[in-house]
């Protein structure tokens, strides 16, 4: 039967186009996955001590699926690790120096240098699990902080098991200072480090500051020494190469690498080569392949090199060819676990973001020829996951760019990029300066330089690490606690062992017996107190992993690329970045709002039930209460319909939790908490943990995703949905007295918003124009970032039945794109359910 139905749909799945033989081969080779002779899977390396550890579980506290495997990971990476011959003084050095030296030694001396046929960029293996370089004493201290009764692991598991969400100090998720690394080369960086070091007193040089700087200096020579190796490799290959053209390419590559990234590049080819090596070594340094390690304004800082080379006669298509090789390299991050899981290690997405277009100083549009060249590359290469493009649009975005954007959306299954809306996003960054006290670092003149990391989380560039995915709090927990006077509605079990988890005492405030509440205001008061409590709980949980990371897991190489670290003599993990926030994202925002609306509607405004009845209904997961459940689901007001009253409540909820979030700083690293609205895939999994909610949701049904309305609630269409989103972020001032122009935005990190459209909306030029108008209207009324899905339910159902025939079908969920067939059945069903804004 499949043969009958498939051809029709397959035509509508986008295919790459216009690729040269070189790129076609590299792309096809990449998608062979485990069938490849070469890959970039993790290799593991040890100091040879019996207590050595490679795998650092802290960075995965925000990935609950991994909790069950922590011990296995730790021991298997240890078992398979190869021993490095250590420097004789190794154990006399400070921890950052040991790490810097060890990683450099592995990368330069132990990893093979390999170049795929036709590839124009060098830099193959970088997925590493390297020794944490701890002494036995350090290990014992660190392990007791993690495994102790009140240790970090017990805390995070309890937090997760009880439906609070998750929290952990995580790697990646920042934009290094690439522009500078290109401008002055690593030689320049090294010289600056040395200059700062030299100015220290003798005592300081031997102390914490000095050893950190020394470690960074060691790290800063890694790219130089690795480039030399690759340069030699190119020369070797050149000797045996028969094809004259390829010979010349290899010769040029060898020359490039004898210069960059140590010296600053001049040509576009050199710049891309330098950028790739600099970037890939961050992933080696953090032992973390990709997630959120983003590039920032790619089409801006690379433009001088592009223009230089074009002027010198580089064929524009060859420039694109270089970029396409870069694209392939970025995808090899997925090789880390290539032999694990169903889709050859290609998981939901790592988010090495590139940012395109957007406003510049004096509100000038910054779109340029390189922007368009990159868009062409994306169009020709896609579907492909990395690097992920974000296009910044604003009121003065050129029509040509908008047309290209809409055309690309029409020809793909959903946008092959995420769209950032500058005005709203910039208003959020201004909120950050005000609330976060960084007026000197984010100003009217430089705020335009912001760029997203990971999925859509906005940060500044080159001096900012704001832990954009580090805290993920289920806001709905506060509703539960308010409904139970600070207790819980159900018995929570360990998600892995299924045993009751009361390892840590729940110490939520008693906010009163809800059955005695006479007015809505009394309930709101209880909810407010519980919101404050869960935020405090999240902050405490984060402190555990943050303080351990700061002490035991330095990343000296990355620290070289983040302004503030050298000056303060602090590692980026110690809060060295000039701008150093940690972001608290809430999950279940709309579910929470809708639950509050339902309580008000059912119990107080219409008295359809007593509070007691509602609570019993929730405890029994609505069993025996189907009429009440139906009223909650279908009759109670909902956020996301441009209903002013419902959205007013939604805004109140937003103000409450964001204001509370700004009050906290980490103790160990003095990073301020800032609000974000991203809920990755937690809104799916946490729906199985939290009990039934007053909005009619049953336990086991999904929570709402990021800033999106609850599943099925947006029955008034995309414009109403978008208007609601804009309103709850802060709306607009009637004059120009917003935080940026007339815009307000309480969420500096940004709010993930996905809308799925019927492909019919782009069926002809007339409709494409209408869609363009929608995007412009969104810029005025909507949120900070929009993902556009363009799906056909029939096609997706067929894809569920015949996953083998839809390997390349891309969908976007919560800020990242994923291959539809690689996501779980529940998420697949969810994507289908949302299509075309079906009523529920």
């Amino acid at each position, binding site marked *: 039967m499949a043969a009958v139905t498939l051809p029709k749909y397959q035509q509508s799945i986008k295919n790459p186009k216009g690729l040269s033989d070189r790129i076609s081969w590299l792309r096809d080779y990449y998608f062979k996955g485990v069938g490849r002779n070469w890959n970039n899977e993790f290799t593991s390396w040890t100091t040879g001590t019996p207590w050595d550890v490679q795998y650092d579980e802290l960075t995965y506290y925000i990935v609950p699926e991994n909790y069950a495997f922590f011990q296995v990971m730790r021991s298997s990476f240890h078992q398979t690790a190869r021993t490095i011959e250590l420097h004789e003084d190794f154990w006399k050095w400070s921890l950052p120096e040991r790490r810097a030296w060890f990683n450099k030694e592995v990368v330069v001396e132990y990893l093979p240098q390999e170049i795929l046929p036709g590839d124009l960029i060098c830099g193959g293996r970088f997925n590493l699990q390297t020794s944490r370089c701890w002494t036995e004493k350090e290990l014992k201290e660190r392990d007791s902080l993690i495994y102790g009764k009140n240790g970090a692991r017990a805390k995070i598991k309890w937090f997760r098991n009880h439906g609070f969400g998750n929290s952990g100090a995580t790697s990646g998720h920042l934009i290094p200072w690439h522009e500078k690394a290109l401008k002055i080369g690593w030689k320049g960086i090294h010289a600056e480090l040395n200059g700062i070091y030299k100015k220290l007193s003798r005592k300081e040089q031997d102390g914490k500051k000095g050893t950190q700087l020394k470690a960074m200096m060691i790290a800063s020579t890694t790219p130089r020494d690795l480039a030399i190796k690759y340069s030699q490799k190119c020369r070797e290959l050149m000797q045996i190469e028969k094809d004259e053209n390829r010979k010349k390419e290899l010769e040029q590559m060898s020359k490039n690498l004898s210069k960059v990234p140590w010296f600053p590049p001049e040509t576009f080819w050199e710049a891309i080569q330098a950028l790739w090596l600099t970037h890939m070594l961050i992933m080696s340094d953090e032992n973390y392949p990709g997630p959120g390690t983003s590039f920032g304004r790619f089409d801006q800082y690379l433009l001088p090199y592009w223009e230089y080379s074009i002027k010198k006669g580089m064929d524009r298509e060859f420039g694109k060819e270089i970029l396409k090789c870069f694209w392939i390299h970025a995808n090899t991050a997925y090789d880390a676990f290539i032999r694990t899981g169903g889709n050859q290690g290609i998981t939901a997405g790592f988010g090495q973001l590139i940012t395109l277009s957007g406003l510049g100083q004096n509100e000038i549009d910054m779109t340029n020829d390189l922007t368009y060249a990159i868009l062409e590359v994306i169009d020709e290469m896609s579907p492909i996951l990395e690097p992920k493009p974000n296009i910044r649009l604003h009121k003065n975005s050129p029509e040509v760019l908008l047309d290209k954007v809409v055309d690309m959306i029409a020809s793909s299954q959903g946008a092959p990029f995420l769209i950032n809306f500058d005005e709203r996003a910039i208003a959020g960054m201004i909120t950050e300066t005000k609330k976060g006290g960084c007026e000197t670092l984010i100003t009217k003149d430089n705020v335009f330089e912001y760029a997203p990391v990971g999925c859509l989380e906005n940060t500044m560039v080159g001096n900012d690490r704001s832990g954009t995915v580090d805290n993920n709090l289920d806001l709905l927990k506060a509703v539960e606690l308010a409904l139970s006077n600070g207790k819980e509605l159900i018995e929570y079990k360990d998600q892995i062992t299924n045993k009751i988890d009361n390892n840590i005492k729940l110490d939520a405030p008693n906010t009163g017996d809800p059955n005695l509440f006479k007015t809505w205001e009394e309930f709101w008061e209880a909810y407010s107190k519980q919101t404050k409590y869960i935020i405090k709980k999240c902050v405490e949980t984060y402190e555990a992993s943050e303080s351990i990371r700061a002490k035991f897991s330095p990343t000296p190489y990355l620290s070289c690329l983040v302004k503030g670290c050298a000056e303060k003599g602090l590692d980026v993990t110690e809060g060295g970045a000039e701008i150093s926030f940690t972001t608290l994202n809430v999950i279940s925002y709309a579910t929470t709002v809708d639950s509050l609306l339902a309580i008000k509607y059912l119990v107080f405004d219409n008295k359809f039930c007593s509070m007691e009845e509602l609570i019993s209904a929730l405890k029994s997961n609505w069993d025996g209460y189907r009429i009440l459940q139906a009223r909650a689901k279908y009759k109670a007001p909902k956020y996301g319909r441009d209903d002013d009253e419902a959205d007013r409540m939604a805004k109140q909820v937003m103000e409450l939790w964001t204001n509370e979030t700004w009050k906290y700083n980490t103790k160990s690293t003095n990073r301020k908490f800032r609000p974000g609205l991203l809920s990755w895939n937690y809104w799916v999994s946490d729906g199985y943990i939290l009990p039934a909610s007053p909005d009619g949701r049953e336990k086991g049904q999904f929570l709402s995703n990021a800033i999106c309305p609850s599943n099925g609630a947006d029955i008034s*269409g995309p*414009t*109403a949905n978008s208007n609601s989103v804009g309103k709850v972020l802060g709306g607009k001032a009637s004059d120009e007295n917003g935080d940026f122009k007339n815009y307000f935005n309480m969420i500096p990190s940004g709010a993930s918003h996905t809308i799925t459209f019927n492909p019919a909306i782009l069926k002809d030029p007339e409709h494409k*124009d209408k869609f363009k*108008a*929608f995007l412009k*209207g969104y810029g005025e009324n909507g949120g900070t970032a929009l993902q556009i899905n363009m799906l056909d339910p029939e096609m997706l159902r067929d894809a569920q039945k015949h996953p083998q025939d839809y390997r390349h079908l891309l969908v976007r969920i919560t800020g990242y794109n994923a291959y539809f067939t690689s996501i779980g059945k529940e998420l697949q069903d969810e994507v289908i359910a949302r299509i075309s804004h079906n009523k529920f």
Partner: protein
Amino acid sequence: MSSQIATIFEIQRMSTEDGPGLRTTVFFKGCPLKCIWCHNPESISIHPEVQWIGSRCIRCKLCLDVCPSNALNHTKRGVVINRQQRCEGCGKCALNCPSNALEQIGKKWEINELIHEVLKDSAYFKNSDRGGITASGGESTLQIHFLIEFFKILKQNNIHTALDTCGVFNKEAMMLLLPYTDMILYDIKEIDPEKHITFTGYSNENILKNLIYISNYITYNKIPLKIWIRTPIIPNTTARADNIRRIGMFISSELNNSIVEKWELCSFNNLCKDKYLRLDQDWQFKNSDLLTVSDMEQFTDIAKKALAYPEIVSWSGQTKID
């Protein structure tokens, strides 16, 4: 008839099919025609009605108790509404139905309330080419006093206004509406007067006269108003070469061609099948096939050949999947 309150059965936002740009389409209830193929059977009666959507019903039977006229019955096949004798369309059942299985079609809207609602999408209208509001139905001119007031306020707010009409209206009242109207979407369904009566229950004589009158009025008074003609292409009825050809000739010879911007052939669709079931009505097209792309292309060709400005012809709508 009130200029302050209207009966409206749907407000569709981000509509892309009812005129230029992005629009909010307001569907007014009540229609003088009874087209046998009607896609909005719920629009014909001017009175509010109730419908039952079985898939949403949780069989709680609360509706039986709240109905003041005892018009509801719960049977094996679900809730049955006694429309002929009892149901007055008051909507109490719908209001109390916990799962929205019972719906009231047609609600009273106060003018300021409606204005507030439709202005919510102004940002999208203004960013599109002539986006705005379309008054559709039913036949919105049945509630002409309200409509005049409605369009007047919209024009004060600089919103583009379009009237979607079947052509049956009071000419004098229409003259009061035109100053606030930027565009008219005008249906010419059938050129043959006899057939028009058979298909719609009403002769097309006045419909065509009204159109000529408006065309002349616009021309002489130099009003910047544009007209789009729409013709539903319905199998075995209007989907005839001679019908299309003669409508084309009518447009060419009787209308000012600089005013007619578009002639759209709308292919038959069967998505309304369930609507008839819910209203306990039979629909003679329930088993009709969709037209094919080549059918529509042929009609488009015929239409083009009949016109001096063939580029104004286009077709839209669902077609059969091969």
